């Protein structure tokens, strides 16, 4: 935020004619944050009308979800896009959250950089306190219409309706009108909630990076939330819950010494209420025990009893350096709330029509003193398109990231994973192709975005490494599944080869030897069954045979929908020819992919010539 002042100064820097310092000082004045963002709205994700519409919805929904979760309420969120004209929309987002007390309304919706989330280290969707106010400001600038907020905090209190108009020069909002509105109570059947309506210039288009996609993906990452979406064509789409369990609340943590920069450290020293440096270190940071504090102080050439007031720039630098050298335990990671493999799967299951699902939650790790963890979900096959590159959907603290895919660490991690090992083809330097959706989620108390509009996760080695490990884990499971599926096909094919020839062989053998063909046939059939089973047996790590009628039997991180497998098989052209009989006869084959009983119903497409 210092940058704009710099540029202003440069503009008025002495030219040939020369301006006096006095003249210049007249033009030098503070610029408000709101003004800065009003001019640089692309930094907040309002670059074009289409993106602006999506960003407005996103900011409102993110806030609603955060509020509901903090209040331990299962979120039910209503989103409506009302098209006023070709380029004008009214966005309304309503939640069943705790509501907002009257006096905070203008702060929350009217001021940039005002919020509860910036100063704490706690996992939440919002971070900076910019989003919703910026959306309101964008609306005001493009349509001149104020933001309408209706909030109800208690059953007994009436709803409050406030019209807010942003004053960009003051980073403050003026209340246009304010009424208590008991009629609006119908909006909040649970007795509490908030509704925000913003009129703005936008463009509605379905497909990638649209409001629809944002809601689709949000529903995947938030299976505990119910979304009701009314699109501009006035169609209502319900995203139902996949689970009724609220995610556990994230706990707040103190900053980790290794995670702060010198400037921040100096600021903290200036602001602290502690008198002595030892107490400051121990109380305001996580993982600083008395002995660690002593170690740091010794390294910095001071003692724990040194007064904070005596710490100047030089000492602060010494402390900073000491912190880098000291051995300090990694920050606590219980502050992170993963979506969890179970919820991830339920989210994917309800929104992606695939046949195979798996998910993985990595243990927490640390980058720059900030704890984080990575989760990856993968869906394969079913109705997913076969001849396209795989789709990567990205999330940070359960919020979908729709833009700047190529700049995101998760995208790079997907590129760097050797998908060929898992049976998915991949050309060098590009995404693999196949019917796959990969979802990457990063949960952290502070997600390092590449910009304020929160579109891509910055590429830290630690983060990318964790992402790759998670991708490898789901990849391995996909590979197992694909190999198993191939084996199943092979087995059926193999057995049918044998069965076809056994008839011929037993008849010819009877003609030669006189031994009953029936007897030979039945004996050979038994051998055939045994042989195909043997050939398809899987050996475990110790070389012992695994009875793998269901290799993922005890694996909670995998879901297979055999019904969709059948659809998929019939889709692929090479499967169509040979088995008309079997699929036409029973549109939903009784066979389950990993079941014990497998009907040998496949005839090989091409005859094996050896």
């Amino acid at each position, binding site marked *: 935020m210092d940058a704009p002042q710099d540029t202003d100064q440069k503009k008025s820097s002495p030219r040939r004619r020369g301006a006096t310092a006095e003249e210049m000082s007249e033009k030098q004045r503070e610029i408000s944050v709101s003004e800065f963002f009003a001019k640089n709205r692309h930094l907040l994700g309002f670059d074009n009308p289409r993106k602006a519409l999506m960003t407005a919805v996103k900011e409102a929904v993110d806030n609603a979800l955060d509020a509901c979760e903090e209040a331990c309420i299962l979120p039910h969120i209503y989103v409506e896009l009302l098209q006023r004209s070709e380029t004008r929309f009214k966005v309304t987002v309503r939640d069943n959250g705790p509501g907002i007390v009257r006096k905070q309304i203008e702060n929350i919706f009217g001021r940039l950089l005002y919020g509860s989330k910036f100063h704490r280290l706690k996992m939440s969707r919002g971070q900076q306190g910019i989003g919703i106010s910026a959306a309101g400001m964008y609306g005001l600038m493009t349509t001149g219409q104020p933001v309408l907020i209706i909030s109800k905090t208690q059953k007994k209190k009436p709803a409050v309706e406030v019209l807010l108009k942003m004053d960009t020069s003051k980073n403050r909002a003026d209340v246009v009108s304010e009424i208590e509105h008991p009629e609006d109570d119908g909006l909040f059947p649970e007795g509490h909630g908030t509704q925000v309506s913003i009129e703005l210039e936008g463009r509605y288009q379905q497909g990638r990076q649209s409001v629809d996609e944002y809601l689709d993906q949000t529903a995947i990452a938030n299976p505990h939330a119910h979304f009701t979406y009314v699109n501009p064509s006035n169609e209502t789409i319900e995203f139902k819950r996949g689970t009724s369990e609220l995610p556990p609340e994230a706990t707040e943590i103190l900053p980790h010494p290794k995670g702060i920069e010198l400037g921040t450290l100096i600021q903290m020293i200036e602001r602290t209420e502690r008198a002595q440096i030892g107490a400051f270190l121990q109380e305001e940071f996580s993982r600083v025990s008395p002995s660690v504090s002593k170690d740091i102080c010794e390294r910095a050439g001071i003692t724990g009893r040194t007064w904070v007031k005596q710490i100047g720039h030089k000492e602060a630098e010494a402390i900073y350096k000491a912190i880098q050298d000291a051995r300090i335990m990694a920050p606590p990671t219980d502050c992170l709330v993963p979506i969890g493999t179970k919820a991830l799967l339920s989210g994917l299951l309800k929104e992606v029509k695939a046949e195979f699902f798996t998910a993985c939650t990595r243990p927490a790790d640390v980058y720059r003193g900030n704890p984080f963890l990575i989760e990856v979900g993968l869906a394969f096959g079913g109705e997913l398109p076969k001849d396209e590159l795989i789709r990567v959907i990205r999330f940070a603290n359960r919020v979908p990231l729709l833009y700047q895919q190529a700049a995101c660490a998760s995208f790079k991690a997907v590129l760097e994973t050797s998908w060929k090992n898992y049976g998915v083809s991949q050309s060098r330097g590009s995404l693999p192709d196949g019917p796959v959706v990969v979802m990457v989620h990063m949960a952290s108390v502070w997600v390092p975005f590449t910009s304020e509009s929160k579109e891509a996760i910055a590429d830290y080695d630690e983060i990318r490494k964790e992402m790759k490990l998670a991708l490898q884990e789901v990849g391995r499971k996909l590979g197992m599944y694909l190999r198993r599926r191939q084996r199943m096909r092979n087995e059926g094919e193999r057995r049918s080869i044998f069965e076809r*020839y056994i008839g*011929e*062989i037993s008849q*010819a053998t009877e003609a030669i030897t006189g031994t009953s063909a029936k007897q030979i046939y039945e004996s050979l059939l038994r*051998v055939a069954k045994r042989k195909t089973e043997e050939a398809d047996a899987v050996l475990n790590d110790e070389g012992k045979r695994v009875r793998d009628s269901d290799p993922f039997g005890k694996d909670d991180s995998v879901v297979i929908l055999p019904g969709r497998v059948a659809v998929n098989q019939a889709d692929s052209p090479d499967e169509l020819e040979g088995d008309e009989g079997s699929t036409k006869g029973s549109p939903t084959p009784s066979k389950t992919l990993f079941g014990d009983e497998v009907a040998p119903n496949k005839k090989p497409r091409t*005859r*094996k010539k050896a």
Partner: protein
Amino acid sequence: MAKKSKSTDSSTPAATPAVKVNRSVSNQATREKTLSKILELGRSVAKSALAETDPFVDVPSRTMSNTTYNETRRLLQMGDATLRRNLFNTGQARKFMQMVLLSKGCKDLLEAQKTLSLRGMYYMSLHSIAGTKEKTFDDQEESDGILEDIEVAIATLRENLHLFAKKRGTMVGNITVIDNGDSIDCRRMGTGGYAIPSICEPSVVQFGKCDAKFVLHVEKDTVWSRFNEDRFWEKHNCILTEGSGQPPRGVRRLLYRLNKELGLPVYCLLDCDPWGHYIYSVIKQGSINLAFESERMAIPDAKYLGIRSSDFVRCGLSDDVKISLNDRDIERAKQIAEYPWFIKKKHWQKEIQLMIRNGFKMEVESLITKDISYVTEVYVPERLKEKDWID
């Protein structure tokens, strides 16, 4: 190719009833022996099936690596290596089925005491597999290969299975043969000559009066016709045969018997190219693919009369007859030179090297550029007189 051969006409009444005619396709002892071998194969399949194990047939391997050159006997012999063919192997199941199927076909044929062409046997065993559109054989080639497998697997011969190939090869000369009871005077065969049958076993073909002193085998019928028209066999008192390129088993068997039973030396007149060299090699020591038959077909004393690389200069041929060697020819020539039965023969090494150095090959017909009958009146008589051949 499935032309009716005389040998199948066992029902035709004998032309001269007074003479006792032997029209049996094969002798009973051989037939019964072959039948018992087929039965053995069938029983082994039935036995392993009933024991619920994987049925198999061991097929001796017919590859170069399983072929050895016996220096003392000067012929190719098949080694002991076998390939096991299992039913319960996806790559072998179909072949296994075909083998059992054709074994049954051969058994039926033997019991009926009739013979069939390879193509006939293919048709006899050809049908769709119950419940599918798949046929037991894709083409005759597939069936022919399996029949050769059966031959080696039960250590018998195609002739003993009552199978014959498409007829190829012609003979004319100072000899009478008795073919399935009919006397055939090879001195009176007109322009066509006597078609050498595919089965030339003593049970079918016997030799009558023979005045010939040697056999001249030429590569193809065009050259053979030149010699026949010029009555070469009459002038030089010999037998004239051709094998339409690589001679089929019938021709080789006949040559072998003429050499062995009647003591006639065999001279070959073949093209000067790797193909011609290999024809000579097969006549002399047997083929790699049919090494198991060498003992009854190879003629270690056969001589190579021509054409030779040096003939281009010696006979003063024009450049027009040169046919450039391509890469494959050169490769094949080097391969032949490396064969154990060629490697120690200096004349052959020289011959092949000269051909490669010349960079061209020549056909027997190239001699016609000198004169229409140069080959019959000058070339061959001179070579024979000077005993100028390679061994």
